[in-house]
């Protein structure tokens, strides 16, 4: 549906060979869904947007109480103010992010044919700032968290609809993210898939391991552990560190490709950010 064209790329043997080793994105998506359906026959696929709280009744109760007075509300309010502030050249974020802004989260990540790279919302925001003569924000800092929290909030209930355009570079970015997901890293020698697929639903220390499906729908997240709202890539860094690997830079090419792969798997789910997590 999204990428029915890519397999028919006129690249002949090369693509055919890759397609044998690597399934098409839509096949990945179907396989992932059926995996979680079989693993959790009583849990609707859509429920995974709540992560571990979809799998643990007790923790869900606590979490719902927390969501009554969501700690990310401050970030949303600050983000709303930042959104209204003019950029250095007098332009606005709407001018840069499009007429629908702030309801634009559903448009990211996408493959940017001009740069040949994956464009995320955070990167787009910094590009807007730099183009207008402002300084780029720290990707792990409070301003980026606030503005993305506001945009996520305004974009709630929009559907994830990541496309892999008919461009071999887009497919390569997706495949790179997929490789990252399945690759063992760190001294503990774990891949993302070991924890979030093979061991999904089990407890790791005090935490219930969530499904990969829905992993990208609810960012940024206020984490009790962080005591602040932070981005998806900070969670990637933490999951890399957890297995005693050296984390990558937020918004590095590999993390953006990973986000591209993961977001595609959540196609059709609704956006529900920002959210609260332990």
């Amino acid at each position, binding site marked *: 549906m999204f990428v029915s064209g890519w397999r028919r790329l006129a690249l002949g043997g090369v693509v055919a060979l890759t397609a044998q*080793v690597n399934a098409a994105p839509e096949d990945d998506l179907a396989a992932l869904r059926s995996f979680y359906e079989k693993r959790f026959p009583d849990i609707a696929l859509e429920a995974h947007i709540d992560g571990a709280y979809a799998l643990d009744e007790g923790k869900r109760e606590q979490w719902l109480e927390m969501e009554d007075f969501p700690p990310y509300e401050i970030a949303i309010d600050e983000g709303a103010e930042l959104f209204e502030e003019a950029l250095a050249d007098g332009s606005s974020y709407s001018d840069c992010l499009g007429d629908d802004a702030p309801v634009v989260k559903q448009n990211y990540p996408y493959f940017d044919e001009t740069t040949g790279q994956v464009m995320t919302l955070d990167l787009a925001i910094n590009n807007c700032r730099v183009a207008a003569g402002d300084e780029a924000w720290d990707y792990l800092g409070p301003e980026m968290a606030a503005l993305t929290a506001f945009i996520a909030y305004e974009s709630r209930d929009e559907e994830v609809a990541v496309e892999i355009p008919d461009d071999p570079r887009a497919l390569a970015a997706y495949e790179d993210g997929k490789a990252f997901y399945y690759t063992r890293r760190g001294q503990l020698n774990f891949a993302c898939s070991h924890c979030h697929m093979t061991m999904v639903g089990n407890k790791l220390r005090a935490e219930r391991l969530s499904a990969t499906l829905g992993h990208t729908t609810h960012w940024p997240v206020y984490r009790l552990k962080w005591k602040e709202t932070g981005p998806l890539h900070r969670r990637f860094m933490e999951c890399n560190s957890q297995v005693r690997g050296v984390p990558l830079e937020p918004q590095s090419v590999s993390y953006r490709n990973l986000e591209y792969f993961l977001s595609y798997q959540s196609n059709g789910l609704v956006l529900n950010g920002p959210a609260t997590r332990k």
Partner: protein
Amino acid sequence: MKHPLALLGMVSALTLSSMAWAGASADEVEDLLARAAAAHEQALALEHGWAVTEPFMEQARQALADGNVDAAHELAQRALLTAEKSVAQAQSEAEAWKGRVLGS
């Protein structure tokens, strides 16, 4: 007369290697650290760095600075081992991940 000579050779080889064990030189530590750093750089470039490598190198340098050459030697060896393992992980995972893909 061949036999005793060979034995003598063996004994001196043993003595040499046990000397290396008992008392590592600062140069050896530096050499190990340089190799560890190079392997770690390679692992980082492959996005497969291990978090333990850097602290081992740091501790080895500290021990060396404190004049504790034997401890420094052991730490530098550990740093080199983890750095080499992290590079090996990157190399074997370049193909191995494919076997984990759902439905493959």
